[in-house]
């Protein structure tokens, strides 16, 4: 039925050669934050990336000398707002990507950007320009995960922070990014000196002392922020770090490793971040109270199982956005393109270089309500549907994952061999202030309160999906074991997109659940896996309005 008719293929070729900037593909070169999110503007004097087709030469070229020019290898870029046009400075050009410096005198606000390449002139693309909007470079090149931060030891010894080269409390760190703000001349080697832009750095939720925030003398558009790791910063492999400029604009959240003595932080996490075969079956119940955007309030509950297995490659910067949770008492944020609540995935969820492993034919889940053979819910989506219910008698109740003991079994026949694991679905939490959470002011801390949980850690995850701009911000916070409330800092909420007046154009929801520990978490035996987990999650959801 999905046959592509040749006549149509021929038809579209008529316009095929014009160079093209892809939609919403003018991004901060470090954070890659979607441009319509609050922190996604392009700062004056910052480096931005343009993605498209035929927008530069087939062979990539990088500038290597000052002064920089507004034309490089036949590529030039105009930025126009009304009657004002300025030229950006290309510093890297290729057929599919350009990196350039937004001139420090570029007009603030909405403008239109166009590239002239040897192939012609591109379509115009809307760009949003701000005085400052900082992005932190990352080792993954996605704007997520380990940041490009150097542990300052001596002038001659400043290794990149990583899981195996952790920083110590009190140590001086050099953070690399772009977007602090304008300078006098973008075309020449920058002069060292802190810029006037107010800069705050947070390390694991603890304010850090900033010693320098300005251009690096080596490179136009590139900023350095020098700060000291707070003595009371939390420790671990993935301590969240962000930068806030002018008390309002929050950067992408990256991670850094901190240990007491600077040694590797991987000891407690190594099974899932070292080379080898990793696998797991995640079984979850999610009960969402949908009281905004629906005809009438409904409580929707779904039971799912997600089997995942892959062969992990070695990485100097181990990170998986789904597994690399911040330490208890802290939060992290991902700002990405797409709708994470409908099929789009976080960059790095399948680690770079990893190979997905298949399961055998019969993957079963056995519990008090009988045995379920887990079938693929949708092609290419490893989520298996187990049952569900909707209040108001809209659907028949077919729930399966009631609290209690379960056994997960895999049969031979796939990349993953036969295995078994036993774990328990915990009782749900009681969300004591759920109904009070309707309008959430993103400039104020958000408090979530609950009871129950049997002393386990509790996770609070919030989503803001803006459909018209195809962007998602998701935050994840982990409460310490035994806590009954958690305060989400305003900076964590800052990059959530505001809920639109038409709620069907937004997805704004908070989830609250136990972080699987104890009987809800079990090792997988067999299957040829170096490490495997069966975990059970019982989460609650609530729709909100991000204001």
């Amino acid at each position, binding site marked *: 039925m999905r046959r592509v008719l040749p006549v149509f293929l021929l038809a579209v070729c008529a*316009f095929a050669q014009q160079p093209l900037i892809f939609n919403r593909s003018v991004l901060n070169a470090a954070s890659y934050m979607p441009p319509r999110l609050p922190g996604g503007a392009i700062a004056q004097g910052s480096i931005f990336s343009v993605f498209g087709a035929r927008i530069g030469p087939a062979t990539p070229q990088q500038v290597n000398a000052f002064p920089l020019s507004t034309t490089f290898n036949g590529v030039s870029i105009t930025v126009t707002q009304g009657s004002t046009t300025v030229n950006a400075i290309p510093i890297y050009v290729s057929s599919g990507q350009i990196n350039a410096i937004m001139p420090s005198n570029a007009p603030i606000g909405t403008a239109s950007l166009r590239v002239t390449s040897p192939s012609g002139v591109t379509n*115009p693309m809307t760009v949003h320009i701000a005085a400052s909007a900082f992005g932190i470079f990352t080792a993954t090149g996605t704007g997520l995960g380990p940041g490009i931060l150097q542990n300052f030891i001596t002038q001659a010894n400043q290794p990149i922070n990583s899981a195996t080269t952790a920083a110590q409390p009190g140590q001086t760190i050099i953070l690399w990014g772009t977007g602090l703000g304008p300078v006098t001349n973008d075309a020449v080697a920058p002069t060292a000196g802190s810029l006037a832009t107010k800069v705050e750095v947070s390390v694991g939720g603890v304010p850090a002392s900033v010693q320098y925030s300005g251009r690096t003398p080596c490179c136009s558009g590139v900023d350095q922020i020098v700060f000291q790791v707070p003595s009371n910063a939390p420790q671990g492999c993935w301590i969240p770090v962000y930068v806030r400029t002018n008390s309002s604009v929050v950067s992408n959240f990256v991670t850094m490793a901190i240990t007491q003595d600077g040694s590797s932080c991987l000891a407690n996490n190594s099974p899932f971040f070292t080379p080898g075969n990793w696998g797991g079956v995640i079984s979850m119940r999610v009960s*969402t109270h949908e009281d905004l955007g629906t005809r009438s309030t409904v409580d929707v509950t*779904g039971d799912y199982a997600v089997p995942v297995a892959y062969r992990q490659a070695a990485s100097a910067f181990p990170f998986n956005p789904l597994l690399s949770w911040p330490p208890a008492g802290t939060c992290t944020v991902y700002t990405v393109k797409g709708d994470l609540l409908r099929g789009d995935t976080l960059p790095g969820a399948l680690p770079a270089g990893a190979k997905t492993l298949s399961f055998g034919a019969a993957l079963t889940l056995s519990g008090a309500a009988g045995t379920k053979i887990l079938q693929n819910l949708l092609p290419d989506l490893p989520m298996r549907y187990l049952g569900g*219910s909707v209040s108001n008698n809209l659907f028949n109740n077919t729930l399966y994952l009631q609290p209690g003991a379960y056994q997960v079994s895999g049969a031979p026949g796939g990349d993953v061999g036969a295995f078994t694991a036993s774990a328990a679905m915990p009782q749900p939490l009681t969300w004591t202030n759920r109904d009070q959470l309707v309008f959430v002011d993103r400039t104020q801390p958000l408090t979530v309160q609950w009871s129950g949980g049997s002393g386990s850690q509790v996770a609070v995850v919030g989503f803001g999906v803006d459909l*018209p701009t195809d962007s998602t911000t998701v935050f994840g916070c982990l409460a310490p074991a035994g806590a009954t409330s958690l305060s989400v800092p305003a900076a964590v909420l800052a990059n959530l997109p505001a809920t639109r007046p038409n709620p069907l154009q937004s997805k704004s929801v908070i989830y609250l659940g136990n972080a699987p520990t104890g009987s809800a978490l079990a090792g997988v035996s067999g299957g040829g896996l170096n490490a495997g987990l069966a975990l059970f999650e019982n989460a609650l959801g609530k729709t909100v309005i991000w204001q």
Partner: protein
Amino acid sequence: MKTSYVLFVMGLVAMLLFEQGCNCEKDPVDPNHYWVTCMEDAGSGTSEPVLTNGKDTHYAGQLFDPSQYSCPDTSNSPVWTGSGQPIYNTNGQPKPSSLLRPRAAARPPVAFLPSLLLDLPFPALRQDTENTTLQCSAAQPDILAINHDFASVTRLATCPFFVVAKIPVQTRPLQIAITPDGSTALVTSFDSAVNFIDLTSNRVTFTLATPGINPNGIAISPDGAFAYITNFVPGSGSISKIDLTAKKIVATIPTYSYPQNAVMSPDGEQLYVTAPYVNTVAIIDTQTFTQAYAFSVPAPRGIAFNSKGTKVFVASAGNPDFATTGAVLEFNTNNFQIANTYKVGLGPNDVQVLYGDQFVVTTNYEGKSVSKIDTVSGTVQTVNVTGFPAGLSIVN
């Protein structure tokens, strides 16, 4: 080319005069979902849209409680059940005259209706045994239907189904768009006007004369600041930008001949315009109000975006005058490459994407059918209807 188009439309006139009532079809895949399609009722002697439960015909002026009626093949089932996304196919093709009548596409309903369930990742999946009945509510949105040959717009409540108002407008109205705040409907009239209808009073409060311009398609920016109209004339097709606060045209740019539908991308940054007589879809950058790009589609008619604006679905009839094929082309809006082609009924005209982005619905004018595309499985269901369906609104 235009002569043949006129003859074709006149040919339709004769057929339309003998078409009557609506049709109710059981969805072959979703047994609890019915398709209700309507054509004008010649027997009533009016051009008012009508709706039927498949057994009796209910004229637009009558109250209609869908929970009390059934399709002929399932006498005990309500008309609107199942997915929570009933489809109303109103009469977008009123009793025609012998005049040239550019093809019009329906616009969205007056206001959105929140869905039964949100498109969140953990829904309770529907089972065959589900028990769903849509409760009729006055809170459901109204539909605005163009009466091209009667210089009016009919406002219809959808549940119950009855005429709320009949609003006189400038002659030969064609297309309609609603401001984001739901306060105003803008209606293009081929006879050189854009009508501003206050949806509180259901009256035209302002008529923007457009001398030398024959407006056809219309789209409104998401912020409600501007409207864009296409100028449906030979040789000098153009697109005009209207400042909705000042209520005047602030810019006009040339485009291909006979530009028809104008559809805004969800983020408001691009305006897609169909030009079926040159087999082209033009993309206008709204920031600069210049043509940014164009791509070819054989006789493009209706256009619809998915909610994220990453895909655009274009109805292609093969030939603008006599449809030779029926296809919906799914384009990637980044590179304008075809991602999928779906075979639908002959002459697809209107396209709408249902909430959740999985299903795309078309009315197939020449094929006298309605198609539903499942973009996940790639399957298409096409059901025949009575008459020549045109005009499509989705009530979530």
